[in-house]
């Protein structure tokens, strides 16, 4: 039965200028939207109404926003702006937030998001502008909190990536300024389990950074994209298990699982060159021609990593791809960009032998655009054998935001009345029309 992407709702009221990015709260059913009118709007994922507006902190467009993880009791939001500063905002979640565990979100947030009108106004007041992080020379494009440490990464048109450590509340110290990119740094993303940072750049490259001895440095360089890399993101630590049960796999598949387990979470990237690529850490014990790739030979060998382009997602987009998001729950990927399409992909074991992908595609890739062949092309000479898995398009929506470009898509837990199962997900898209739209994926 075909998978379809269905429009569920538009968050109201919409912003009447461009909106850049919407980030779901780590545990509350709310989403923060970065707007070019210098505000961040907080919408409820339960009724899709605006709960509050955060404004007054920035002199120019807010390009990006990120929630601090594991901050129960108080929500902490970081905003990155074209005014080249980053802001930290705080807001108490209220006493009923105390001692909440996962799963109960709905109950305790009912108070927060259920109520509107009067309470909203209070909410407005409750957002406190805690601290400004100055340092970048020009527009901040993206920022991200580390899941495993009190670290915040910011990146900017000034070609640098900054890592800030929060010593105690609101006291941020610069621990690293990484300047090896040769162009704007468009996006930063943290590894889910390690203190490993990925950055994507206008110089068409992706770099990985980690602490070497007591110094942050670039440990991997991924080249290949033929245009600005707009977005990078790691898959969930358990990404591998989304392929289904480990039972009765053939050797090729077992081998692949082994490789994946050794490599750990993969990285996905999308680019102005309209491609979406998946990168995997190369295994150490295969000495690939890595030395050549890393310019800085004086660094200790085991610090350097080699990441290989494992797969390229089916070519559906006709214009720059601005964003990809990797579902923590299903391992599915959703992408969007200038052509206003939203596309959902799925990874699956490659059907073997003669029976070719095409018919499968017919079956599965429902509204896949007729033009593109909707299966991973066979990249990856890089580490020997062909992939045991392949990516297919499972659903697609055109003109997702009317005729406007879509800047961002992201998965989030579903929280509205229509929710059926606990781990049901929605896709949140953010566009140039100033609208934040909610989509559901039905199988």
């Amino acid at each position, binding site marked *: 039965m075909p998978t379809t992407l269905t429009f569920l709702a538009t968050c109201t009221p919409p912003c*009447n*200028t461009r909106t850049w990015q919407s980030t779901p709260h780590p545990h509350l059913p709310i989403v923060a939207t970065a707007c070019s*009118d*210098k505000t961040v709007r907080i919408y409820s994922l339960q009724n899709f109404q605006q709960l509050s507006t955060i404004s007054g902190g920035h*002199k*120019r467009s807010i390009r990006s926003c990120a929630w601090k993880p594991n901050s129960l009791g108080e929500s902490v939001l970081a905003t990155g702006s074209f*005014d080249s500063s980053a802001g930290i905002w705080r807001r108490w979640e209220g006493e009923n937030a105390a001692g909440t565990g996962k799963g109960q979100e709905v109950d305790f947030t009912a108070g927060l998001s259920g109520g509107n009108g009067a309470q909203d106004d209070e909410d407005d007041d409750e957002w406190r502008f805690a601290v400004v992080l100055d340092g970048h020379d020009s527009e901040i494009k993206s920022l991200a909190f580390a899941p495993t440490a009190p670290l915040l990464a910011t990146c900017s048109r000034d070609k640098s990536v900054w890592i800030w450590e929060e010593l105690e509340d609101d006291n941020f110290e610069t621990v690293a300024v990484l300047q090896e990119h040769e162009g704007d740094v468009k996006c930063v993303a943290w590894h889910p389990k390690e203190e490993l940072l990925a950055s994507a750049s206008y110089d068409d490259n992706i770099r990985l950074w980690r602490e070497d001895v007591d110094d942050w440095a670039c440990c991997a360089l991924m080249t290949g994209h033929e245009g600005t890399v707009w977005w990078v993101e790691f898959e969930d630590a358990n990404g591998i298990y989304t392929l289904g049960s480990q039972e009765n796999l053939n050797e090729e598949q077992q081998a692949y699982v082994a490789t994946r387990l050794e490599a750990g979470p993969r990285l996905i990237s999308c680019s102005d060159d309209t491609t979406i690529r998946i990168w995997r850490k190369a295994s150490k014990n295969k000495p690939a021609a890595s030395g050549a790739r890393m310019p800085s030979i004086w660094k200790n060998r085991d610090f350097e990593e080699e990441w290989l382009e494992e797969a390229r997602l089916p070519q559906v987009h006709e214009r720059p791809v601005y964003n990809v998001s990797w579902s923590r729950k299903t391992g599915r990927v959703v992408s969007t960009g200038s052509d206003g399409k939203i596309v959902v992909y799925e990874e699956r074991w490659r059907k073997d032998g003669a029976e070719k992908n095409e018919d499968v595609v017919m079956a599965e890739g429902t509204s896949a655009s007729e033009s593109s062949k909707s299966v991973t092309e066979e990249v990856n000479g890089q580490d020997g054998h062909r992939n045991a898995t392949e990516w297919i398009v499972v659903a697609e929506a055109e003109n997702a935001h009317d005729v406007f470009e879509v800047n961002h898509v992201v998965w989030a837990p579903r929280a509205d009345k229509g929710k059926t199962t606990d781990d049901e997900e929605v896709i949140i898209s953010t566009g140039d029309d*100033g609208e934040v739209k909610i989509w559901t994926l039905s199988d």
Partner: protein
Amino acid sequence: MSDIQLYLLEADKNAAEAKQIAAHSASKLQDKSLKLIDLVTSLEPYLNNKEDGDQRAKSIGYVADLLSALPPKVLSLQERHLLCDFLLGRLEGDVEGVGATARALIALETLGKWDSETVQKFKLQTERLAVVQLVDLLLAKHRDSTRKLQTEDAEFMPAFISYWEGEKDPRNLMIIFSLLQVPMTEWDMGSHAQDLFDSVFNYFPITFKPPPDDPYGITAQDLKDRLKACIAANSDFAPYAFPQLLDKLDSTSINTKRDVLQAMQACITEYEAKTINLYSVTLWDALKFEILNVQEEDLAEEALRTLSLIGGKLAELPEDGPLNAYLRPIIKECNEHLEDAPTKQSEASGRILHALALSGPVVADRVAKGVLPVLFALYHGSESITKRRGLLEVFTPIVEAFVKLSQLLPGTKITSLQAFAEDALNAMVRALVNAPKSEVSFRLASLTGLTQLLAAPGVLNDKQIDRAVDTVTDVVLHEQVDGHGNIRAQAIKALASIAHSAPQSIRDRTIPAFMVELPDLPEANAVPSTKLEVFAQLARERQVFDTVVLRLKNKLNSARRQQAPPAYTRALLLSLLYAFTLGSPMEDDGVILSSYYGDYAQPLIDDIVRQDRADKDVAEVEIVGRICNAILRPQGVHFQATVYHGDREWMARMVSNATASDVGTAPFLLYYYGAIRPEVVEAQDVMLLLKHQASVALHGGQSQRHTASSLRLVSLLVNKFINPKTMRSTLEDAGTEAESLLQNTSSAQALNVAFAVIKGLVLQGKSGTLTTKYLNIILDHLSSTSDNTAPHLFSTLLAPDDILTKENHCPISGLHKQKVFGQVIPKLTTAVRTADTEKKAGYLVALSGILRWLPYSIISPALTDLITALLQTLDLHDEPVIKASALTVFESILMHDPQTLSTHAASLITRLLTSCTTASTRSAGIRNTTEVRAKSLLCLALLPRQLKAETVVPFRRQVVKRLMGCLDDAKRNVRFEAVRCRTAWLGLDEGVDDE
């Protein structure tokens, strides 16, 4: 009797005697038998005699004579000061005897030079004006004595100059500048020339702004002019003037530059030619930059004028040397620029040469000789079309100069131009005939060149003229491809001006050529109307008018004979109409010749009367009417009377027993009666005709166009021919009395006739009470019906009408619009406020129907009452025309009194945003026509410009977003407005982001 008394006695009778007396008292002073102080005190009573001004004057005269009789060194310095002060005092206090005082002071002067201290005293502002006036007067009354003064006294000049140092007061400067011209022009300045010059040039450039409440009304320009006159006063100034002016020409201030150039022009006109000769080349070297790299267009103009003045000046000299010396470098440089034409420089060269040539035949001749050989050498030497265009663009201005010259001084020598006539002709004719059609600018350049060449008398011989004319004619007739540029339009213009310069050739070549192109019997769908249009336009030139109309008439007749399709005969008639309305027919002291009526109008009329068919071609009938109107209207009573009585018979027949066939003539009658003067027609005829037309209109059944003309005829008759005194009775007799018309029926026809009558009355403005009565009747009618015929008719009341005009001898009250406004608008606005919804629409329609035609000046006082109504008008459904007119009003409000709208900004913006789109409103059943959409956007675009920022900024984002939709409107012109509008709103500064 004291000396003074004696003096006063003698003063009038015997001047010599009086002088004696004065001399006598002088000697007394000399031998100290009389003290100065006593003398002065003795004068006291007479000097201050309030009653007798004359006496006061004489007493001063006494002092003057006395002083002049006094030998030097008698009076001490102090005494002289004393007197000086005293006299100056008088100057200020007393107008009487200024002359005498002056003499006195001069006398005083001769007794001993005014030392610096006294000079200082002059600098005290209080006395300043007095002194200035005095000296002015001295120079005026005592030219000789003053000149003598300065010739004798070497010290005088410097002192004289130094008097004026540091003067600031514009009043004084005005006088000083003028008085200084006396020494400058009349005295031998000798060594003092430079000082004298500097003393005035220090003030250059004048940067004086008169205070807002300047009592003396002295403008900067006044000062500038006088200063200019000083600078230009004497050729001896040249060595100082030109260098300093040239130096100032490098100034960065546009104004300074402007002053410099004007001063230069003054100098060049005033100084002697031989002086100018010394500086001519230097000036050129400086001036050219203003033209080659234009900063400000008007500076370039001034520079060009200056160059031309120099040329003219040098041409005055008997010998050639100076002029050649001046022209040589110029021609050389221009020729160099020709090398890489077209460039800014080559274009500028064209202007320079044009300006020079204008300065006189001699110069023009030299320029032509100097440039044309090079120009055409280059022309033939190059294949590049662009280059050739560039060269023509230099050639044409030169010819143009010749044309202008020969208009100013006929018989200007043109041989030097003639020498290249053939070359030029070939070049340009080839360009027009052979160059690819896409080379628009090149062919245009040739076309203009050709036109100029033809306009220069005697340059081309007849053969050449014919060739040129043929070429242009051919372009006009056969270039159908309009894909490339508007060359055809230009060609038509050219043809028109050629018709002026070479009428004969137009008659012999062009007109026949056209006749060949115009068939007698074309296919119905192939009427050569565009060719006819062009042909008719030739009639704008008087010299060919008669030929054109005659040919048209013949065409028409043969077309009629062969039953050509009506479309064609109509087109031919229109051509005739065009010729008679917009062309230049022969006139007899300002009035078109009456003979045209017999030759052209009459036959056409007979034709109409003759064809006894009901299906007369309305258009044709109307056109004939208009032709006849054009010729008949200006004719005198006598001629009109004869014509009228000629036609009376058939018209009477028609009126009496209206057969369908006669009814068809209404469109003709409308224009016919439009032309006739009121005194020509008999009241009875009018009444009958009125009755007839009214009944036609009332019974309907006619085509809309017929009815329309009948109704307009009704208005005309009422307005022009019915005597106000008998108005009501006549209307009753004719069955057109509005009250009774509307009493029992409110049929559309009745309403139409009523409104027609009222319109006539309103414009006439003579039957006030009746008009008011009628206006009220139709207003009441609105309350009685919710049918929308009446409301819409309101817009006809004040609608302009090409029949009811002064030219048609109609009485048009200058105040009729104000009157209607006063009588109708208040009632309507109140009605709008009170009426229930379905009536309201009617009132709104009527309201904007009136407002539509009112000049803003009338509306503006009542704005506050109107705005709400107008806003509601925008909500009307399916009233595009009404909405449009409401929007027009808003547009003018936004232009003139935007602030009155600031309180309504919100509601206005919302309405405009709905009326500027098709998308959202279609569903709501509102239909926004292209016009409404465009106008709405126009108004919307005015808001950010006209209203205060704080009023509009809050709406910025909303508007900018909503307008995105209009950017995709189906219609191009709407999109155009949308873009302008959106740009205006995007331009609004939300005042953030400071760095």
